[in-house]
């Protein structure tokens, strides 16, 4: 337990330094703006503002990016409630309850409820994650190829279960995603496959950051 609490205490002391407090404020403010915009999401905002690490010490930069992520989580609720357009993909569910409340004139209650829910959810999840991270990491390191295959199978079965009545379309989406992952060089034989129009950029495959910014 001491192995967790002592570094946590050190980190908390660092968080109260003036520069880091300002980074928290600036990060949350930027995150609110980023989350509010329907085109930008939390992953987008962090990816675009990563070069902040050049300007400030690394601790302050990580604090800024984390505060941006948290701010974007709540900022999505603002445009969901007031405009009915989800600001981030995490705020889609807020539209269902928040928009009717705003149309009845109770937008302030909806925004406050979203803020308090974000706060409680974030705090509880951080505490649980900090406590359970070391045993979870030790367990995850034991995952082999069979377990990863089982995870993938569980994910695809969940998609089909949640896909509703239109199963062929869900299967098509799953297979399209798998085929897009096959673009690039084959791991086993090293042959290039599906390099469209001989563009060199396809040889690396479709990057995760590109997908995260484009889709989320």
């Amino acid at each position, binding site marked *: 337990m001491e192995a967790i609490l002592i570094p946590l205490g050190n980190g908390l002391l660092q968080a109260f330094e003036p520069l880091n407090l300002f980074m928290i404020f600036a990060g949350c403010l930027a995150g609110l703006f980023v989350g509010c915009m329907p085109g930008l999401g939390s992953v987008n905002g962090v990816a675009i503002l990563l070069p902040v690490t050049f300007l400030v010490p690394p601790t302050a930069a990580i604090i800024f990016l984390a505060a941006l992520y948290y701010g974007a989580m709540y900022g999505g609720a603002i445009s969901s409630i007031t405009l009915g357009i989800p600001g981030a993909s995490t705020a889609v569910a807020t539209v269902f309850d928040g928009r009717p409340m705003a149309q009845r004139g109770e937008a302030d209650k909806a925004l406050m409820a979203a803020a308090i829910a974000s706060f409680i959810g974030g705090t509880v999840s951080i505490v649980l994650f900090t406590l359970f991270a070391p045993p979870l990491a030790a367990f995850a390191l034991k995952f082999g190829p069979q377990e990863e295959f089982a995870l993938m199978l569980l994910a695809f079965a969940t998609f089909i279960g949640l896909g509703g009545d239109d199963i062929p379309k869900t299967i098509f989406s799953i297979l399209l995603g798998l085929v897009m992952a096959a673009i690039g060089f084959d791991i086993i*034989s090293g*042959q290039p496959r599906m390099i469209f129009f001989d563009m060199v950029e396809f040889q690396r495959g479709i990057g995760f950051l590109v997908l995260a910014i484009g889709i989320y």
Partner: protein
Amino acid sequence: MTVRSAELLMGIATLLLSLGLMWNVWADGLTIGWVEGRGPGAGMWPFWLSLGMALASLATIVRWVQGKTPESRSLEPYIANETIFLVVVSAVSIFVLLVLMNVIGTYLSLMLFMLFYVRFLGKHTWGMTMAFVLGAPIFVYLLFEVALNKYLPKGWPMFEEGFLWLDNFRWQYFY
């Protein structure tokens, strides 16, 4: 276009896409089967997964013919006309912005885009238009070039030299 015809068109388009992917794998000459002692051939995953995609598209078309999904029976318009206009105009203007970024530079094309979007599409006042036309390039410059130290495309050398004057000024007097 009704929702019904859009569903059929999408089914046919996905079928053609899947068949195209299968043909692409076959035309590249990749091994489609299992290589003895080594594992799956290079073309196995793309080919057989694309075959699955083709079968799923065929199933969608068959279900459309049978009328099983609600989309295959609905006769509502697929997209409203004003939505199509807005989407097409926005997409074309952003594409022109991207092309112009490599010709006249990021900031000039951003100013033209703001002028078109805020004044001609959004029909706002000239005051608000000028605020965006001047404010957006300044904000982008301060955020990306000064703060994050990223060099944005400046277009052809003729236009790039004009901006290099600004960069020289900044580096000479501020650092």
